[in-house]
């Protein structure tokens, strides 16, 4: 039985007439990594700020775990919130005149870490984010990426049960990004829960158990990646041919293939086949069913006798495609609704 550690119910935040977060219902389960994605201005940071008590929801409710498996309203148990949660929100800033050691020590004391453990926790956090070398340097002399690392360190220095990380990878170099991914995997292995917002979809798909997509303040999907994929209306096959097709015949051939595989593509208004001379070969969009894939393969090899040397589902950008499709659909719905309203 999975326990819920955070529960948002009908959560709403208005800034004047802009609804930044609209009736958000979302649960975060114990021990999972929940990816939180959405376009700029979708409301990710706003949601996390509300969880952290930095801003007040216009309406709705936030409940958090009290450690005994039951939930309590976050605002009623602030000490639980501070102790069990670690936050890295937006682009954090630090007092410039102090050193990472000093500021982390300060945070540890504020968070009630026992005195004798403070030094150990600081060393641990600094080592994890690879800042040990700079621990006695003043923060005002830090680069952006170093500050971002410190931001991550301060979020986990007290080993919280739940880490709320808002784009922890912004401004980090590739090695540090990989390092952050490793950190999150490690935290997950330790049984920690992570609520992670990011624009790096590849990283998200690598580490997240579930993904929540938000657009214009509204949650448009939340599920495991494999389940979300099944909701996609199109999937892609890359077909590689032994040699390029004579340019004069391309159009004819594309048309012919399109006709024959029409039954396996759900999208009627879009041509399901695109020739790409760089492969050389085709991109074929179909409905994603394994049987369809088999049939398409048969049509290409037996019926058309094409010299195929590669036939594979394109996997690399799954989440990206999914994201684009869901967000775009939501945008279309949104504009249509607005038009209706205006009439």
């Amino acid at each position, binding site marked *: 039985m999975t326990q819920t550690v955070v529960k948002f119910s009908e959560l709403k935040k208005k800034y004047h007439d802009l609804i930044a977060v609209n009736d958000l219902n979302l649960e975060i389960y114990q021990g999972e990594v929940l990816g939180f994605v959405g376009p700029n201005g979708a409301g990710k940071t706003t949601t996390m700020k509300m969880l952290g008590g930095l801003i007040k929801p216009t309406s709705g409710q936030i409940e958090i775990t009290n450690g005994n498996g039951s939930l309590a309203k976050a605002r009623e148990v602030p000490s639980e919130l501070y102790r069990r949660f670690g936050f890295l929100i937006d682009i*954090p800033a630090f007092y410039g005149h102090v050193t990472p050691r000093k500021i982390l020590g300060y945070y540890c004391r504020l968070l009630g870490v026992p005195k004798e453990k403070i030094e150990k926790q600081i060393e641990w956090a600094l080592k994890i984010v690879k800042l040990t070398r700079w621990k006695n340097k003043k923060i005002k002399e830090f680069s952006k990426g170093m500050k971002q690392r410190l931001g991550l360190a301060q979020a986990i220095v007290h080993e919280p049960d739940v880490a709320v990380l808002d784009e922890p990878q912004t401004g980090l170099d590739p090695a540090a990004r990989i390092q952050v991914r490793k950190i999150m995997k490690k935290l997950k292995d330790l049984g920690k829960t992570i609520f992670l917002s990011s624009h790096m979809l590849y990283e998200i798909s690598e580490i997240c158990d579930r993904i929540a997509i938000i657009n214009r303040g509204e949650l448009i999907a939340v599920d495991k990646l494999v389940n979300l994929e099944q909701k996609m209306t199109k999937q892609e096959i890359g077909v590689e041919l032994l040699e390029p097709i004579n340019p004069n015949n391309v159009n004819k051939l594309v048309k012919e293939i399109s006709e024959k595989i029409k039954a396996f593509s759900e999208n009627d208004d879009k041509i399901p086949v695109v020739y790409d001379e760089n492969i050389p070969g085709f991109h074929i969009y179909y409905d994603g069913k394994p049987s369809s894939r088999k049939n398409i393969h048969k049509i290409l090899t037996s019926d058309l006798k094409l010299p195929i040397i590669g036939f594979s589902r394109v996997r690399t950008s799954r989440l990206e495609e999914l994201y684009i499709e869901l967000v775009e659909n939501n945008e279309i719905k949104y504009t249509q609704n607005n038009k209706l309203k205006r009439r």
Partner: protein
Amino acid sequence: MKLNILKIINLRGDKLMALNLEMKRNLSMNQIFVIYKFELFLHRKRYYLMLILGLVMYNLTAIILAFSPPPDVKLFMASTVGQIGSLLVFLTLFFAGGVLADEFDKGTALTNFTKTGRDNFFIGKSLAVFTSVLIWNGIPLFENIIFSLALYQQVPLELFSWFVFYCLVGGTYVAIYLLFSAIFRSGTQAMVMAFFFIMAGATAFGILLGAPYYFPIYAEIAVIQIFDPSAVDGVFIIDLSYVIIMLLAYLIPCLVLAYLRFRTRDV
């Protein structure tokens, strides 16, 4: 320890009902102390500067006077501690002007306020700023004890009245600065507006109301009454108790409003 401020200041019903919806108060002496210590540490340089400035300022007048000491110890004090007071309004601005606003403006609120309740921050930071007033007034207090013992072999009680009164004056400035600091977005803006308010706004308002004057910096004129009870300001006899009530009438509401604004402000 929980403090139910709603019960203490049951002023405006519905607004306070709304406040009730927010984060429960989460006061802890331990955390307040940690914040207090850290704030003092953070402004270490300012304290050094203040100490040096205080010693130089005070010693200059005191040493000059020591060559030809006035006949009465009270006269001596009126011309030494009375001098140092006029810096109080700048000094408190230096310490309290941006202390709350900068957290929001510079983005440190994003990390700090997820560590412990804002109540603790408010109290810890305020105490740290009040400490600067204590230290600043403590320098002349300490030196005056030494000088008056050396020159007159006595320490009049008025010196301690002066100290308490001047801490109240400094506290009032601090409260006003804290309120502006809790309202305005940027620290600099808060400092400019608050300073303008104290020097011009409140002063104009106080003069309009007439004597006895109701504006904080009037206290710096009224202070001579401590050493000379018959002191006259122009044509009016100064009544120190009026001044004290006036200061409290600024200090308490400003502090309460600053607190309420600070804890409900969006980061």
